[in-house]
């Protein structure tokens, strides 16, 4: 008889990730595609059965039993079972020990291992992201394509090549030792941060899936921080950074997907619980010898978040933090952000001077934010024709509808005051 159980949000998606990780550890990376098929059909079976009979007392256990039996059946049919049971026999056991020995403690460990598998340095980073979304977060190819703003066919190709490459690399989930952790942990953090940024800054107008990405990134980050071997200060600083940003998610975007700038955000909408989490992880991360980019980026966001008002922000401090950040991670984007902070601190002309020093970097010229900042600072400085020129460029280059709207509203303001219409083709 059906009972009144309800499943927690994203139950199927997360069970997918847990089961794929667990079975891949037990059956080997070479069986990853088989494992994914098995888990997918097990979820379908759950859907059909639970639609008629209600959700069982222990849905996780139910799914695990079904998936395990299906996995063994599939392997028998493809004659791959013998080699697995032989290798198990060599380990002096009668059955698959990992499959038998299931506990709630086992799951996070398996998923952490899966995360390190996805962040194999032989894979391009965009494949690492797609693979993590597929195997750990239970996104299907359509959802990944939507989240990463690319085609489904492209994602399918990426995933296919990634699986092939992983098979060749012969690295197994059970091989996660200290050396591998050291070698891959930076890539793991990068993938988590990329996931988060895709959700937070993505050009996709699909607000729901973007929020899911941010949540998934935080979930994966917690896997790192819950394990003593990977719980490094940089991992904790990453958590802090993500929580600070997440606290502003609702206040940053309007229902229709438009963006509120920091100065226009309603601080009452910031999620206090998430801000406290950010602070908690920031305190945790303040130890050890190394200062990571996440420490510095977190500190910059904290300057914004922990201030009582936009007017009270200490821009001089933020410029200092950017100086440190540029020191460990040189790159034009941080310099661009630094120039914005300088403009806030000392006025638009000072900001424009900073930008003039960066102008030789040609890679920036086709970057919409470069032109947007140049346009905006010129607007503030009263150079309306330059402002119109750069904002028009930014408008043309900008991939995100929400940000285009923002730029176009700035442009409208200028057009009301001057005749720069010739720049708008």
């Amino acid at each position, binding site marked *: 008889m*059906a009972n*009144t159980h*309800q*499943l927690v949000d*994203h*139950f*199927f*998606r997360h*069970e*997918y990730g847990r089961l794929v990780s667990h079975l891949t550890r037990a059956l080997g990376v070479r069986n990853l595609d088989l494992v994914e098929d098995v888990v*997918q059909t097990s*979820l*379908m079976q*759950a*859907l*059909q*059965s*639970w*639609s*008629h*009979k*209600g*959700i069982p007392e222990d849905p996780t256990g139910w799914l695990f039993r079904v998936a395990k039996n299906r996995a063994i059946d599939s392997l028998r049919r493809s004659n791959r079972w013998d080699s697995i049971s032989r290798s198990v026999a060599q380990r002096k056991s009668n059955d698959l020990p990992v499959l038998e020995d299931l506990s709630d403690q086992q799951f996070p460990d398996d998923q952490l291992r899966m995360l390190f598998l996805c962040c194999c340095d032989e894979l391009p980073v965009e494949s690492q992201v797609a693979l993590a979304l597929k195997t750990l977060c*239970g*996104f*299907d190819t*359509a*959802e990944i394509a939507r989240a990463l703003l690319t085609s489904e066919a492209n994602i399918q190709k990426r995933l296919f090549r990634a699986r092939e490459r992983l098979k060749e690399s012969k690295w197994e989930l059970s091989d996660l030792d200290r050396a591998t952790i050291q070698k891959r942990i930076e890539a793991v953090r990068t993938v988590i941060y990329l996931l988060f940024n895709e959700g937070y800054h993505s050009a996709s107008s699909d607000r729901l899936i973007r929020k899911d990405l941010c949540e998934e990134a935080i979930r994966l980050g917690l896997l790192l921080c819950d394990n003593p071997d990977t719980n490094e200060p940089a991992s904790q600083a990453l958590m802090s950074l993500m929580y600070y940003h997440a606290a502003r998610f609702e206040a940053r975007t309007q229902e229709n997907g438009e963006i509120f700038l920091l100065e226009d955000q309603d601080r009452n909408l910031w999620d206090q619980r998430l801000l406290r989490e950010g602070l908690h992880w920031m305190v945790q991360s303040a130890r050890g010898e190394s200062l990571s980019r996440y420490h510095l980026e977190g500190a910059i966001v904290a300057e914004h978040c922990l201030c009582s008002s936009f007017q009270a922000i200490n821009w001089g401090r933020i410029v200092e933090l950017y100086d440190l950040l540029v020191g460990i991670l040189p790159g034009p984007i941080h310099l661009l952000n630094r120039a914005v902070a300088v403009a806030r601190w000392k006025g638009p002309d000072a900001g424009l001077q900073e930008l003039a020093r960066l102008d030789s970097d040609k890679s920036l010229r086709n970057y919409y934010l470069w032109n947007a900042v140049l346009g905006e600072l010129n607007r503030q400085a009263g150079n309306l024709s330059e402002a119109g020129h750069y904002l028009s460029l930014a408008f043309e280059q900008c991939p995100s509808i929400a940000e285009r709207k923002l730029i176009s509203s700035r442009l409208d303001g200028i057009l009301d005051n001057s005749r720069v219409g010739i720049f708008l083709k």
Partner: protein
Amino acid sequence: MTKYLFIYRSEPMTTPPSPEEMQASLKHWNDWAAKFKATGNIVDEGDGLKPCGKVVKGGGIVTDGPFMEAKEVCGGFSIILAKDYAEAVKIAQACPMVQFGGNVEIREMAGYV
């Protein structure tokens, strides 16, 4: 009150739903079932049917079927208690099967037994 058999039919899926879509679908079914069990309309939630079976014909002909290429497959059934067809139709219209592109065939049970 009359007993009706609900027969659920839908087109075979070309691509399987994502885990998130499965969960949403399950929630719809369970909400529907909870609602009409509370009103006493659902006597037996029935069961789902596996996609493939056998078709037995005269002359010793046994074939696999229904076929995957069939336009619609029967995916399950339930037994419903309703005042009349009008009420049964209302219950079926609220069913997720109808809302997600499938259909529900309603047949009044003859009650011979």
